[in-house]
C-alpha cells in the first residue's frame, strides 16, 4: 500500500520535473482575440477565449473544488524599459463552482462579488468565453496620440486550490492551465 503511494508520488514528482519540457497537449486556455473598445473617453476590454479544461480540472470542479481564473491585463508604454513598472496593471479573479444541491454551476467575480448561476458547464464556459466591457482600472494613464502595448493573460490560479492539491497541481502538467501572453498594439 505504502509502496504504491511512494511510486505514485515519485511518478508525480518526476512528471512535474519533466512537464515544462515535454508537455504538449490540446488542453489549456487560448485567447482568440482581445482588444479595447473605446466609447467616448472610456476604454473597455473585450476578448474571446477558448477554455479547454483538462479532465482532472473538470473532475475536481464536479467534486466540489472551486477553480479560480486569474485574468491579468498589463499595458506598457513602449518608451519605458522592460524592467520598469507597467503603465496599467489590473487583475480579475473569476471563480467557477459547482452546486451539488442545485446541480448547477456558478461563476463568481471575486473582486465585485457578483455571482451568476448556470445550469450546465457548457453555458458557463460559453459565458466565460466572451469577456465583454471590462472597465479596468488606471484608464487615466492613457495619453492621446500615443501607442501602447497591451498584454492579456488567463491562468488557472493554483494557489487558490485547496492546500493538499497545490503541490500536486504544481508538479502535474494537467493543472498548468494558462494562456500564452496575448499582446497587441493599442493605437491612438
Amino acid at each position, binding site marked *: *500500500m*505504502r509502496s504504491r*503511494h511512494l511510486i*505514485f*508520488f515519485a511518478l*508525480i514528482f518526476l512528471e512535474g520535473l519533466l512537464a515544462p519540457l515535454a508537455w504538449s497537449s490540446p488542453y489549456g486556455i487560448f485567447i482568440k482575440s482581445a482588444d479595447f473598445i473605446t466609447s467616448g473617453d472610456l476604454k473597455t476590454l473585450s476578448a474571446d477565449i477558448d477554455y479547454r479544461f483538462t479532465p482532472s480540472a473538470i*473532475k*475536481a470542479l464536479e*467534486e*466540489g*473544488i472551486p477553480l479560480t481564473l486569474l485574468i491579468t491585463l498589463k499595458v506598457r508604454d513602449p518608451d519605458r524599459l522592460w524592467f520598469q513598472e507597467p503603465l496599467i496593471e489590473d487583475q480579475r479573479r473569476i471563480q467557477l463552482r459547482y*452546486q*451539488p*444541491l*442545485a*446541480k*448547477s454551476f*456558478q461563476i463568481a467575480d471575486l473582486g465585485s462579488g457578483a*455571482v*451568476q*448561476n*448556470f*445550469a*450546465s458547464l*457548457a*453555458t458557463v464556459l*460559453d*459565458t466565460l468565453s466572451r469577456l465583454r466591457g471590462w472597465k479596468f482600472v488606471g484608464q487615466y494613464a492613457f495619453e492621446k496620440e500615443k501607442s501602447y502595448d497591451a498584454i492579456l493573460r488567463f491562468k488557472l490560479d*493554483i*494557489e487558490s486550490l*485547496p*492546500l*493538499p*492539491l*497545490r*503541490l*500536486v497541481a*504544481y508538479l502535474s502538467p494537467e493543472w498548468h492551465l494558462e494562456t500564452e501572453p496575448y499582446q497587441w498594439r493599442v493605437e491612438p
Partner: protein
Amino acid sequence: MARRTLRPPLTLSIIALFLAILVSLHLMSTATQDASELGEMYSSLVLTNGLASLMLLGLVGANIYWLARQLRKKAAGSNLTSRMIFLFSLLSLAPASIVFYYSVQFLDRSVDSWFDVNVDQAMDDALKLGQTALDERMRNLLKETEQIAQQLSTSPISLLSIRLGELNENEDADLTLFTRQGQIIGFNGSQTETMTPNLPEIGIMVQVRQGKPYIGLETIGHDGLQIRAVVSLIGEDAIFLQAIYRIPRQLAQLTDSVEAAYQHYKELTFLRRSLKFTFTLTLSLILLLSLLAAVWAAFLSIRRIVEPVRLLAVGTRAIADGDYEKRLPVKDRGELGFLVESFNTMTDKIAQARDEAQQSKWVVERQRAYLETVLASLSSAVLSFDSELRVLTANQSANHILHADFEQYIGWPPVVLCGAYPHIAELMSQLEPSMNSESPSWKMELTFNSPAGRQELFCRGSSLYGTQGQHEGLVLIIDDVTALIQAQRSTAWSEVARRLAHEIKNPLTPIQLSAERLRHKLAKTLEGPDLEVLEKSTRTIVQQVEAMKTMVNAFSEYAKPSHTQLRPLRINPLVEEVVALYPPNAGLHIDLQLDPDLPEVLGDPVKLRQVIHNLIKNAAEAMPQGRSGKMTIQTTFGVGFGTGTIELRLSDDGPGIAPDQAERIFEPYVTSKTKGTGLGLAIVRRIIEELGGQIKLDTAYRHGASFLITLPVAQPSTDVNDEQR
C-alpha cells in the same frame, strides 16, 4: 598579531539553526491545518524548506567530501571524525526512520479512516433528501407559475403589467415579464436589491424557447436559496414569464448546511491521495531537514571536539619528526584543552632537554676534538684498551712509532691485531703482564724490534676506571726514546773524544820531538846494535805518536762541531759520482737501482759524499780477503709516516754485523773490522742526523749488512740551487 575573525559561538549557531528550522517546520505544519491563515504561504514554505534541505544537503555533502579527502590523505583525526559521524548519523537516523515509518503508516490509516462507505452513503442520502424536499416545492412553484402564465396569456399586452400584480399572490415571489430581446414588459415583486430584475441566462432561454419550461434552484449570497422558474406565455412566443421564489431562510440554511457538508466530504474524498502526499511530503521534509541539520551540526560539533585530538596527533607527528618547536593552540578549556596544554608543556620540556643534550654533546664533541688534536700532535703514542685488551683509541704517533695501522683494528681482539702485525705481538707479550696487572700506573723500558729496526721504547700505563670504580681498561703511552738514548750516547762519546783529543794530543808533539831529538843526539854517538835499537825505538815512538795523532785527529774530527750547509739536491747523481770512484776491478761490484723520479732532498753534498763513501768503503773492507763482493745501492721514495722522505739503502753480501753489535754499531769504537778507528759509522750517523735524516741497520736483512738512510724531501718553497743537476 594573529588575525581574528568575528564568529558567533558554535553552540549559538547550531541553536539558531535549529530554531530557524523549527519555526519553518512549525509554520509549514500549521499551514497544513485546514483553517490556517498560513495556507497561502504553504507553497512558499515548502519551497523554502526544500531549498533549506538542498542547502543542508550540499553542506553535508561538502563535509562528507572533505572528510573523504581527509581520510584519503590519512590526516590526523580523520578516522575518529568519520567514526563519530557514522555513529552519530546511525544513532539519529535509526530512531528517526522508525518514527517516520510509523508516522506515515499512522497518517495513511488516519486519512483512510476519515472515509467510510456508510458516511459516503449518508452524505449522498442527505443531499438527495434536501433535493427531494426542494424538488417538491419546485414542482408546485412551476405549476403555480404556469397557471399565472396561462391566465396572463388571455390578457392584452397593454394590461399585462397590471394583470401581473393581480395574479401575484405569493409575497416571496418576483414576477417578471420580458420579451425575447430581454425587454421587460412588467414586474411585480418585493425585490429591491437590484434596480433591474435578474433575467435568466442564455442556456435557460434556449430551453424555454424550445417550449420546455425551466425550473431551477439558485444560490444567493452565502446561505440564501431561490427558485427560478421561466415559462413562455401560451400563444405568445415572444413573451416570457420569470418567477423567482425565495426559499424560507430556515429551509435554506438547512439545505445549505447539508450541501456544505456534502461538498466538504466530496472535496476530502477527492483530495484523499493529495492529502496523503502533502502530509507525507511535509513529514518527509521535516525528517530530512531535521536529519540533515543534525548531521551538519554533528559535523560541526565533532570537528570541534576532535580538533584538540587532531592537533595532538599533528603535534605528536611533528615531535616524532624532530620538530620540538611545535606549539598547539589551546581553544578549549576543558579536559581536552588541559591535554593540549600538557602537551605544550611536555614539548617545551623535551625541547629544553634536547637543547641541553645538544649543548652537552657539543661540549663533549669539542672536548673530543681538542683531545684528538692534542693526541694527534703528541709525539708519544697514546693507546687505550678495554679490559679485554682490545684497542679502543690510538693516535697517529702510535701508528708511526709501532708501525701499525691501529684504526683498522679498533675494537678487535688483540689476537687479530697481533696476527696482522707480528712485531706488535712481541711487544704485547712484554707488556701484557703489566697491562693485566690492573695496577693504577706502571712504567717500563723495553727494546722493540720493529720492521724499521731496533727501537728503545718507554712505556707508561694508567688504569681506566668506570663510574663504579671498576677496572675498565688502561691508557698506554709509549715514547720512542731510541733517538734520545743514541743522542745521549753520542754526546757522551763526543765529550770523551773532545777530552781525549785535548788531553792526549798536547803531549804527543813533545813526545815525538823528544824522540827525534834523542835519535838526532844519540845517533852520532852510538854505533852498531845500539844505534839499531835507538833507530828502531825512536822510529817506533815516532810512528806510534803519528798513529796516536791520527787517532786523536779522528776523535777531534768526530767531536768538533760541523758546519753543514743544507741545500736541495738530487741524490741519484751524487750516488753515481761516488760510485764512479770504485771501478769494478776494485773488488766490489756495485749495482745501482735508482729511482729516476725522485724529488730533491735537503742535504750537504760534501757530507753526503762522505757518508756514501764511508759506507762503500766499509763494505769493501768488510769483504773477506780474496773474495769479490757485491753491493746494491737503492734509492726510493719513502711513503712512510709523516712528510715525504727519500730512502737510500746500501746492502752488501759481506759477513754482516753480529746481532750483539747491531744495537751499538753506530757508536764509536764499535766495529767488526780488525783495522780502523771504529768511528766511521759513528761519523756517518752524526752527519745524517745533522741533515735531519736517520740511518738504521736493517737487522732483518740476512745476506750481509744493509743500511737504510732516510732523508727529508726538500720543501717546494725552498730556494733551489740547481748545481747538482
